[in-house]
């Protein structure tokens, strides 16, 4: 146990997330249901819709699949980060907080655990999307996609942590769900192009981390994006750093009872 970085504690916090994840098999399948139906029915329903500024070779399913994947990652990782609310509810947070493990290590363990489970969900969705008609993006595309999946998860696990640190209990959960999570994915360009939105709404999109995530995933999977993939990557990377610091800071000041 040396100072703020406690590898064994980070490992066991990660291990706990893995065990819980693998034991909730119905949840794994269940959380793939929504994106699968989105992909299937939106993809077929809007088959003849041509996203503006996109070459006609790209059909709506290929346009929307990276977007839905981003939503899968966003929701999964935000729920993951907010898991500390459940831990608080069931008392386990006290068991964690009374140990001599630095708060930073606790946040890191939680973050890495959240990233792992969410990225697994993302990969599962990717396989489903390939079956549904997403074009195979090649090894480089998949690796670059994986990098974006990790960054999106990392950012949103910590956003979830920040939100959970500011909440006392589960009371406000549906407000967060409906007024934070939903606008984030609607204003990310995941499902539809943002060009038609009023200017001030568009400027909101530019501070939305998921916007860069969606853009990066599109760049990786279908090779078309608003910004160059490298720029998306850098912006997301910086956002992750900010969010980790904010998450660790707020989590350290959390009251346990």
């Amino acid at each position, binding site marked *: *146990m040396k100072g703020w970085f*406690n590898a*064994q*504690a980070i*490992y*066991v916090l990660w*291990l*706990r997330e893995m*065990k*819980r994840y693998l*034991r*909730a098999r119905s949840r794994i399948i269940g959380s793939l249901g929504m994106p699968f139906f989105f992909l299937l029915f939106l993809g077929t329903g809007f088959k003849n819709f041509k996203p503006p500024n996109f070459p006609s070779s790209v059909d709506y399913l290929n346009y929307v699949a990276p977007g839905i994947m981003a939503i899968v990652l966003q929701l999964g990782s935000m729920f993951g980060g907010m898991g500390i609310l459940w831990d608080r509810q*069931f*008392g*386990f*947070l*006290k*068991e*964690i*907080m*009374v*140990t*001599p*493990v630095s708060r930073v290590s606790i946040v890191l363990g939680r973050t890495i655990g959240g990233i792992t489970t969410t990225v697994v969900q993302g990969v599962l969705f990717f396989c489903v999307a390939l079956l549904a008609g997403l074009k195979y993006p090649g090894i480089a595309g998949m690796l670059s996609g994986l990098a974006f999946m990790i960054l999106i998860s990392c950012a949103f696990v910590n956003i979830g942590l920040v939100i959970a640190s500011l909440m006392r209990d589960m009371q406000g959960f549906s407000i967060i769900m409906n007024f934070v999570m939903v606008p984030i994915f609607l204003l990310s360009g995941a499902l539809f192009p943002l060009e038609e939105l009023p200017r001030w709404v568009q400027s909101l999109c530019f501070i939305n981390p998921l916007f860069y995530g969606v853009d990066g995933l599109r760049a990786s999977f279908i090779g078309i994006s608003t910004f160059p993939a490298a720029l998306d990557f850098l912006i997301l990377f910086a956002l992750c750093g900010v969010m980790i610091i904010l998450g660790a800071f707020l989590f350290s000041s959390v*009251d*346990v*009872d």
Partner: protein
Amino acid sequence: MDAITTDQLTKKFDTLLAVDRVSLSVARGELFGLLGPNGAGKTTIIKMLSTLLSPTSGSAYVWGHDIEREKDAVRRSIGMVFQDPAVDDQLTGRENLDFHARMYGMKKELRLQRTQEVLSLVNLEDKAEILLKNYSGGMKRRLEIARGLMHYPAVLFLDEPTLGLDPQTRHHIWEYIRNLNEKQQVSIILTTHYMEEADALCSRIAIIDYGKILITDTPAALKNSIGNDLLHIRASDLVRLARELEQQPWVKGITSHDSHIYVGVSQGEEKIPLTVNLAQAMGIQVTSISIRRPTLEDVFLHYTGKTIREEDISSTDRIREHMRRSRRSHP
């Protein structure tokens, strides 16, 4: 060096003075009890001593470490069993213990060996591979006690260790606790609002109410402090009789109720005729006198002016009352 010392330890939540200048010391190897009704501030004291809450003022040392400046050292010296379950339901008993051991940085061999030891201490060896969600309340509590001991703490905190358990399980838990204290040489602080529990287990007890410690002593000395015997008296004019009895040098204390009074005395048999004679001289009709040994309940009543049971009816009301009081005394 004591296991725990606190000096004027105080915790304020907004207007609520939850812990009011508590000073106490617990010797090494002691089994010390904090006895008080729900909402008296017992859990808040434990939370401060275990670094989960910062005190508003005052100081405390656990195993020689300052609870404010040496949080990690304090955390490493203590084991904790919380009032409400604090386990991961989705993990097995063994996994919960393993999680704990790794959080405390224990090496693999030690971890495995210690897991067996603490499991056998609470007789859960054959339940180790079962998910916690399938444990009964008593089993969970035993596992939490085992977990609290996992990392060889010097001081173990037990916050209402038998709350919500059936009488039989409660007695088993008492056995485990006694065993830990005697055989494993662990200093134990337990909070409880069960009189029998404090009486049966603790070597010393602090009675706490409205965040204040009213008195600290051994159970026997506490009982003796209000008289070796209690006379239960019914009479035609209790108010006058009580006033007169208060003047008698052999009366150690009186608690008055609507229909009867309790009088603390020693050698109770000899005091019955004295009381009757006194009453007769005053023209008061004595209806009945009985004699019994005082219990902790009587001690509690004596020092707080109420029984602990009536206080258990509603802890919300109690907290409200508490806030009213603390507002009055700390404007």
